[in-house]
């Protein structure tokens, strides 16, 4: 069975798979399967898989979907918005998926949109990733031509329009209600909750906002089932996780590993340990807004539960290492400076 579903089609330095190549690799089979299921069945499958949001908060994806009004009386149009505004300092995981396998994302979008019966989907892409935009637009056009998007997808009753929106940069765009304001052409200022976007989101209509990595998991769950997905993980939180490391290590990078891999394993085996002459002093496990962990936490399993028990948060799973030759006060000052500049936007 596949161990690393999200990155199996991605090879560094190679163009992403074209539609034909993606199909040959088994692509869009999950969509065919999903369209034969009832929308609620797809949602239940995702719920049973215990897939938790990979944007940082870790909310159960299936549960989030189930809050959306369904049936003929539901307000329309309904929206699915893909949060690709990866702006958490130290985070570079969604870029890898966007650049590496755009059709995986599009297939995930179509299946997820079908599950919640969305009429329109948006990919909200940050400006810094705009070189990817051409590639994404090409993939969207290919998917359209083959009727994986558009009217009556693959002969079904279901139709979906997908648009790409390129943002102009602000950290607050990553917060889901700030993102919705931005998509409406306003300042990305978060909205008061409730009402939640599931009920009153984009232009006041029911809306689901999901992260790129979250959505890329969906085709694989549909294809291979709940038990397989749970089996990928070392812990209760199902699936794999894209982990990254930056800082003074030998091989900074990004790896898809079982959810719950320990910090020690990621740091030593994958990142090659600290650079010669540098010692490990601490780590922020998942972006600038997560708390420091130290040497005694190296055996903490990187999943939502265990990192929280250790006093921090998994966040995005892309770790930033503090070494013994970097001033911790300066480190924190840099983070605070970022938040001061970005949190309000004026």
């Amino acid at each position: 069975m596949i161990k690393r579903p999200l990155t199996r089609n991605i090879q560094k330095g190679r163009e992403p798979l074209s539609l034909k190549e993606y199909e040959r690799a088994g692509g869009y089979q999950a969509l065919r399967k999903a369209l034969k299921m009832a929308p609620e069945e797809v949602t239940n499958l995702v719920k049973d898989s215990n897939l938790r949001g990979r944007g940082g908060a870790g909310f159960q994806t299936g549960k989030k979907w189930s809050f959306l009004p369904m049936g003929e009386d539901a307000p329309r149009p309904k929206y699915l918005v893909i949060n690709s505004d990866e702006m958490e300092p130290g985070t570079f995981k969604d870029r890898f998926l966007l650049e590496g396998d755009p059709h995986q994302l599009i297939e995930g979008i179509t299946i997820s949109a079908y599950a919640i019966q969305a009429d329109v989907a948006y990919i909200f892409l940050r400006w810094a990733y705009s070189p990817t935009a051409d590639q994404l637009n090409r993939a969207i056009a290919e998917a359209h031509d083959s009727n994986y998007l558009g009217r009556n997808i693959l002969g079904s009753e279901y139709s979906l329009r997908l648009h790409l929106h390129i943002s102009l940069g602000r950290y607050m765009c990553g917060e889901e209600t700030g993102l919705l304001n931005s998509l409406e052409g306003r300042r990305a200022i978060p909205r008061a909750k409730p009402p939640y976007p599931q009920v009153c989101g984009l232009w006041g209509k029911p809306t689901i906002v999901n992260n790129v990595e979250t959505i890329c998991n969906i085709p694989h769950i549909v294809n291979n089932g709940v038990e397989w997905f749970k089996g990928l993980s070392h812990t209760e939180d199902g699936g794999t996780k894209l982990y990254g490391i930056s800082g003074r290590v030998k091989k900074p990078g990004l790896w898809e590993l079982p959810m719950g891999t320990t910090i020690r394993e990621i740091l030593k085996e994958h990142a090659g340990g600290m650079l010669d002459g540098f010692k490990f002093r601490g780590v922020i496990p998942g972006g600038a807004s997560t708390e420091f962990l130290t040497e005694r936490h190296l055996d903490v399993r990187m999943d939502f539960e265990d990192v929280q028990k250790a006093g921090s948060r998994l966040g995005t799973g892309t770790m930033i290492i503090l070494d013994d030759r970097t001033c911790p006060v300066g480190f924190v000052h840099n983070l605070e400076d970022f938040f001061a500049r970005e949190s309000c936007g004026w």
Partner: protein
Amino acid sequence: MMLTEEEKEDIEVELQRYKFKRAACIEALRIVQQHRGWVSDQNIKDTAEFLEMTPDEVDSVATFYNLIYKKPVGKHVILICNSISCWVTGYDLIYEHLKARLGIDLGETSSDGLFTLLPVACLGACDHAPAMMIDKELYVDLNPQKIDEILKEYRERT
């Protein structure tokens, strides 16, 4: 100067993606900037008129987002990342070097009008920090020597 026909056409294309005209205001500002290099108060007024918004509404958007320039910029804009991974791996060195080579500080434009230097939040290239972008091009694993080569390339291009 009013919006050109070309600008209007480009904005019309974006309008099709949204339910309301104002939703295209971020794209409209990007389009105007693409054509003119930056966005003046008059451009804000014209964009507002075209989208049936007030100038204040468009201005509130233009002043919020990092990448709308309300002042003229150089031919190329250098966006240097000063977020945490780049800071740990040598932002200071890169910044000092750029400052010396260009003879300008953050927010300024070189006397030949070629480069404007601006700070930017995390570019999502942390495994290859320090990083910067020039216009739409990403440059990673930076060091002073590499920066000299990059600047030389841009100077020769013009």
